[in-house]
């Protein structure tokens, strides 16, 4: 998956359009990235990519760029 495709996937998880996000976008600036949104993100990473994160893992993901790093570390982003 390319970064552009990953950004589109992240936008879809948070019910946004890709042009509303950049790697610097902080979770505090994403309305749907609240506690429920974080769980939705965990479920989507699991179902779509087989990436299983713990509660502690997800707390360290504070920006879209952090999320891209997670996907990169799991080999889902080139």
């Amino acid at each position, binding site marked *: 998956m390319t970064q552009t495709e990953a950004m589109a996937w992240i936008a879809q998880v948070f019910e946004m359009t890709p042009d509303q996000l950049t790697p610097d976008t902080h979770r505090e600036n994403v309305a749907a990235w609240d506690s*429920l949104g974080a*769980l*939705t993100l*965990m*479920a989507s990473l*699991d*179902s779509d990519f087989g990436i*299983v994160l713990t*509660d502690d893992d997800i707390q360290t993901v504070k920006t879209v760029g952090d999320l891209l790093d997670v996907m990169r570390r799991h080999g889902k982003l080139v």
Partner: protein
Amino acid sequence: MRFILVDKILELEPGKRITATKVLPASEELFRDHFPGFPVVPGVLLTEMMAQAAGRCLDAEGTHPGRAMLGKINGASFHEWVKPDQAILLHATITQNRSTYATADCFAEVAGKKVCSAGLFFVFAPHEQFASGYQDEILLAYWKANPGKQPKAI
């Protein structure tokens, strides 16, 4: 009207799948408004029925840090009208089952015909938030009728 939207559990594999039933009698006051002269079960109640069935499937496992609560409706479709007094069969299959969240694919059928379906997302509310000694009467009735199927954790 009480908000117990599952009458009876028919089949249960805790944490995996459940089949349950519900009938909304024509005497329910809501049918005066939904709709006058054309009473049908509201889609939101059908969704809640599926959610309550799926939630009980998760709660029956007894391994989560709280009680399953509907967090999100990922998608829902309504295919047929459901009339008062019709027996509604509720099916839920748990598709993701983690300690902090779960997802379920659900559908309801009447007389062998699928009437609605939904993908549901669950979170878990701590047991301490509920009334002390609270126990689910529908699950208790199932365990009473099927004592050999009750997990030891319950």
